[in-house]
């Protein structure tokens, strides 16, 4: 009897031991909700990385990685907490790519991931609030914080000799976070803000806002809003009434729609948005094309990198336990070491198995700074001649 029991325990231990080698990654994305059009491509990005690792056969001496999706709705924090709870407790994942939107990411991180010791790498939550959150080292993101964008925007404006500016922002976490970060850096660099005014999206009339911004004045108007929402309404009003000629646009505004709408009227204006360029990005887009999806879709590349970082860190730590491999994430993502591009995950795994150091570049030139977030590569754009031109990346 005793022997039998021992044998059972031993097999059970062996069984779990063997199963533990196979890793499971949860994808917590908003498959329904306000960003439902982006989520499928992001999931494809993460799954592409997992497929690549499995095909290489180099992961943890030939174990496999599987993925499981969970719908966090983006808008509803309670639904997101429930989704991540399911991933952690019933699916028993070893790492999570997600969340997607800042608010639900904060909620699911604080309520589920940190208490349960689960690593979350978000491809797309950009709120500055996530930089200072007490994550016990379990949270990373492959997209830059909007605080970083505020700094880049302030730099660009000072370089271009814009010394005073009026700021209008869309009244939500994104707009407010970005506007406040920008204000801090801009004033540090000697710029002066004449007015900070929020605007509501989807309203009928923006004459009051434009009037207030015009009365406050400034060399330029910073529009931290959305191109399909109030941001364009403000720009239209400001152009028509001659209130401002120079506009500064952050990522929510930079798109072809902006150019289509205003064309040559934005001659003096400029802006920036996060956009990794270069070899890594090109290779990722090619890989995605072979796999049958659009790699340039928003945050698809960031999702690929998030999944890749989880698996490479597991390999580096020789463990799929999030409490162990979380300490390897920064090491794997940053220099020094052999540079690893998209499509070279197999090589990266092999090098790590040999005990060598790697510097994961990936699809977005991933370089994690501060509390484990992407340093962010931004492109500075202009609208000369009624076209969107990239001036340089920074």
């Amino acid at each position, binding site marked *: 009897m005793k022997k039998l029991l021992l044998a059972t325990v031993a097999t059970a231990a062996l069984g779990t031991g063997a199963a533990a080698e196979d890793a499971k990654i949860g994808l917590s994305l908003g498959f329904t909700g306000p960003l439902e059009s982006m989520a499928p491509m992001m999931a494809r990005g993460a799954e592409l990385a997992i497929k690549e690792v499995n095909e290489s056969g180099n992961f943890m001496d030939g174990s496999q990685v599987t993925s499981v999706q969970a719908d966090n709705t983006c808008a509803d924090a309670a639904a997101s907490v429930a989704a991540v709870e399911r991933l952690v407790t019933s699916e028993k994942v070893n790492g999570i790519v997600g969340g997607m939107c800042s608010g639900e990411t904060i909620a699911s991180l604080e309520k589920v991931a940190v208490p349960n010791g689960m690593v979350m790498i978000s491809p797309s939550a950009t709120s500055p609030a996530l930089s200072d959150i007490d994550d016990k080292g379990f949270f990373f993101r492959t997209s830059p914080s909007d605080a970083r964008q505020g700094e880049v925007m302030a730099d660009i404006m000072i370089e271009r000799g814009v010394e005073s500016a009026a700021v209008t922002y869309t009244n939500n976490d994104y707009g407010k976070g970005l506007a406040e970060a920008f204000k801090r850096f801009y004033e540090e660099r000697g710029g002066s803000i004449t007015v900070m005014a929020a605007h509501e999206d*989807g309203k009928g*009339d923006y*004459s009051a806002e434009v009037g*207030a911004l015009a*009365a406050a004045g400034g060399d330029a108007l910073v529009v931290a809003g959305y191109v*399909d929402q109030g941001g364009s309404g403000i720009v*239209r009003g400001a152009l*028509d*009434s*001659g209130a401002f000629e120079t506009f500064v646009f952050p990522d929510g505004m930079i798109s072809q729609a902006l150019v289509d709408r205003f064309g040559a009227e934005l001659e003096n204006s400029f802006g920036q948005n996060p956009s990794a360029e270069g070899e890594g990005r090109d290779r990722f887009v090619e890989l995605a094309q072979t796999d049958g999806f659009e790699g340039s879709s928003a945050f698809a590349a960031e999702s690929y990198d998030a999944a890749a970082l989880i698996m490479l860190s597991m390999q580096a730590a020789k463990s799929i336990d999030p409490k162990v491999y979380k300490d390897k994430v920064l090491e794997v993502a940053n220099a020094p070491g052999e540079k690893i591009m998209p499509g070279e995950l197999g090589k990266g795994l092999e090098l790590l198995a040999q005990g060598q150091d790697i510097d994961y570049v990936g699809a977005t030139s991933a370089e994690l700074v501060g509390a484990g977030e992407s340093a962010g590569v931004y492109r500075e754009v202009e609208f000369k001649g009624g076209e969107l031109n990239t001036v340089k990346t920074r």
Partner: protein
Amino acid sequence: MDILNALVAILNFVIIPATAYGAQLAMGALGVTLIYGILRFSNFAHGDTMAFGTGLVILLTWGLQALGLSLGPLPTALLALPVAIAGTAALVLLTDRVVYRYYRQVKADPIVLVMASVGVMFVMNGLTRLLIGVDEIRFDDGARFLISVSQFKGWTGLDEGLALRSTQAITLVVAALACWALFRFLNRSRAGKAMRAYSDNEDLALLSGIDPERVVRLTWIIATALAVAAGTLYGLDKSFKAFNYFQILLPIFAAAIVGGLGNPVGAIAGGFVIAYSEVAVTYPWKKIAGYLLPDWQPEGLLQLLSTEYKFAVSFVILIVVLLFRPTGLFRGKSV
């Protein structure tokens, strides 16, 4: 010179935009108030009637543009407007036949009709989106400005610019024409008098041989014409987005109630009160003060309320009016 600059700044940033916006609200409120006065319920589907009609205008405008027709400096949409009004009126009359007539016959409480109109609103909402989608559409063509900022500065040599968009001027002209025609119709024509009689006392009107269904039909047609015209003017001046027409319902109702529900003069006055209070109360006077009192350099913006509160302003006015004059500024029916 400085006084002129101050004057131009106020004109450019307060008076012109607020007047155009006020005219758009006034026309919307006129439709709401007519329905309330004659059919005796608040029609929540009004905003979406505006959206549906404007959607038709846009489709017709595209058709006309494809045929190469235009009105020269005027927007092509004005040419499409009458046809779109007819189309929307047909839909609204069908709604009345299918939904509202039943509730009239069973003499349902006004609140039941209001709830029915909320249902109609959601259906119209969906129809509009099926028809034209949810995206923002600009459909103004022709000359954009009557006076542009650079022209104005060139003519006058002032520091401040003044812009008058052609859509703003058209809004004012069309709104004035529509009001004039409406009042003439209500006061002079037989059908108009019948409508007023029906509104004042339904039973007496029936006794004197007025056909109630005819009055109801006329009311719907006129209210629809006003709604589609208001929606088109608004869309020309800003842009068309189905969701915005749902949002604009609130200020329109505020305007109608402030003016006095059921009272056409009140609707117009209410429209302007709401528009001016949104724009003027939140306007920072720093620049104006700088022109008028050059020695005084204020630190702040001299702004009474920040622009986030502009909607609160119209609702504070609404509450104050309802507290002290429950029938509105111009003695409409009590709510």
